[in-house]
């Protein structure tokens, strides 16, 4: 098996007394795209948000999340550093009401980077990685809110890339976008996995089969099956997986 970017052991998440995720153990392979699929309420987004501690104020997360051999789910972990290393892109494009340039360097500014040359270079690098550079290079100082939905989402990806994370978590990154923007973003993701590991939640089966190398199927808070995407889609081992993929529920 390939190198592991992130290892989850016995992850359980509860909102108050309501348990929404139980006994999830997974190894996310490095430099691969892993898709989390499952019906609404299966807990896939909850798992995703737990991976960089975005659930801290909302839920109780127990279990281990090992990143470079360190459990980042322990209270001692510096959540701000964790989130710089494990970035997140949300369902809705959320550019801040700032210029395109300022949006991209937001995370770097937080980290205290002031050197103009470093910032300029990182803006270009990140926007190129997100396949947005050619479209916006002449309007870096205009408002990010003037971009189209697809461009805004790629800007959000660039913004996350700018802090050079090792892992990017994506929560249905294309569900608010049209098919053209969706396929542009999927292309972008495939190119990005040379540099980092991508874990994404998706409702879109085609998207999982098109772009993910690995797929984890979740059902009612449990991990049902985790395997190479081709295996999951062509030859599911569990009946629940087969039922979900053939549209019997979900």
């Amino acid at each position, binding site marked *: 098996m390939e190198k592991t970017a992130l290892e989850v052991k016995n992850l359980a998440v509860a909102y108050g007394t309501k348990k929404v995720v139980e006994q999830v153990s997974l190894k996310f392979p490095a430099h691969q795209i892993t898709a989390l699929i499952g019906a609404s309420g299966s807990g896939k987004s909850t798992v995703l948000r737990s991976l960089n501690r975005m659930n801290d104020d909302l839920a109780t997360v127990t279990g281990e999340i090992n990143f470079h051999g360190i459990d980042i789910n322990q209270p001692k972990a510096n959540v*701000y*550093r964790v989130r710089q290393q494990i970035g*997140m892109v949300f369902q809705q494009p*959320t550019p801040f009401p700032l210029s395109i340039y300022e949006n991209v360097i937001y995370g770097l500014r937080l980290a205290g980077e002031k050197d103009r040359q470093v910032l300029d270079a990182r803006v270009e690098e990140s926007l190129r990685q997100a396949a947005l550079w050619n479209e916006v290079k002449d309007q870096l100082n205009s408002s990010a809110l*003037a971009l189209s939905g697809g461009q805004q989402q790629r800007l959000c990806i660039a913004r996350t890339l700018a802090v050079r994370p090792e892992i990017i978590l994506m929560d249905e990154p294309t569900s608010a976008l049209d098919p053209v923007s969706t396929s542009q973003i999927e292309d972008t993701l495939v190119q990005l996995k040379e540099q980092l590991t991508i874990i994404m939640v998706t409702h879109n089966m085609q998207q999982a089969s098109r772009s993910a190398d690995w797929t984890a199927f979740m059902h009612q808070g449990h991990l049902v099956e985790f395997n190479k995407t081709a295996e999951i889609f062509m030859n599911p081992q569990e009946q629940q997986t087969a039922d979900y993929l053939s549209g019997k529920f979900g």
Partner: protein
Amino acid sequence: MDELNQSFKPKPTVAFRRKKTTDRLLAPSVETRQEWGGKLVSCLAILLIGGLVVTLFAFLINKGLALFTTDKFSLGAFLTSTDWRPSHHHYGALPMIATSFAVTVLAGVLALPLALVSAIAITELLPNWVYRVLQPVIELLVGIPSVVYGYVGLTVIVPQLGRMFGGTGFGILAATCVLFLMILPTMTSMTIDNLRQVPQQYRLASAGLGATRWQTISRVVVPSAKSGILTAMVFGMARAFGEALAVQMVIGNAAIMPTCLLSSSATLTSVLTTGIGNTVMGTASNNALWSLALLLLLMSLAFNLLLRVISRKGVR
């Protein structure tokens, strides 16, 4: 057409259904009459409001300019002279203009940071039940009549200032304190509303990039609500500028150029409320008060325009 009619199979017992479809489409109905009636009532209401505004302006302009047209007092002297002695036909309004601006700006500048900090605490830091408890309380404070604030100023603030700094305690500082108390709830409430309008996703996205709560507030939340917060400040200051009664109770009402924060002074509004009952309609000293009123109206207009400009800037 025939086919269509047959497929509907109209019941012959109901009178209007026996009519042909084309007749029904063109005939007047209850609905069209309601539409017309509604439009008429709305138009009348707008005419009434518009008429009120127009007549108010015409009246104030007419009375306010009488000092310069009928009584031949110079406009320049009115705006720049510091000598306000109606008994001697000196109508220099500068002391009141200066005092009005002083109390307004001071109250606004003092209230803004406090309003901002409390609004941030309520929307960003404290649990949601604090907001649910405090919002009605703050709105209650907004609705307290100004005479109550004035009375508190007169019985608590003025004596206290007198003890602390000597003198009577009446003056710009006392008026500033009272206005500060008065506009703080308005500004806090408006700022809270504006901060709550900042999309939750901005906060999540910022946290997802490794921002601390403080970084998110200072770099995303407050800048996003900037124009709304400025609007709250200008709105509060407009209220402070126009407040008459509470100010009149604590400012000392001496129409002289203010020299320090603790000397008795007078604002445009306080001179108006004090003087309007003591002058005879049509005399120069009465006209001078109308000129002050016109000045107030123009200032309110300026504040309104400023609000428009700021809130339009917020829309992208």
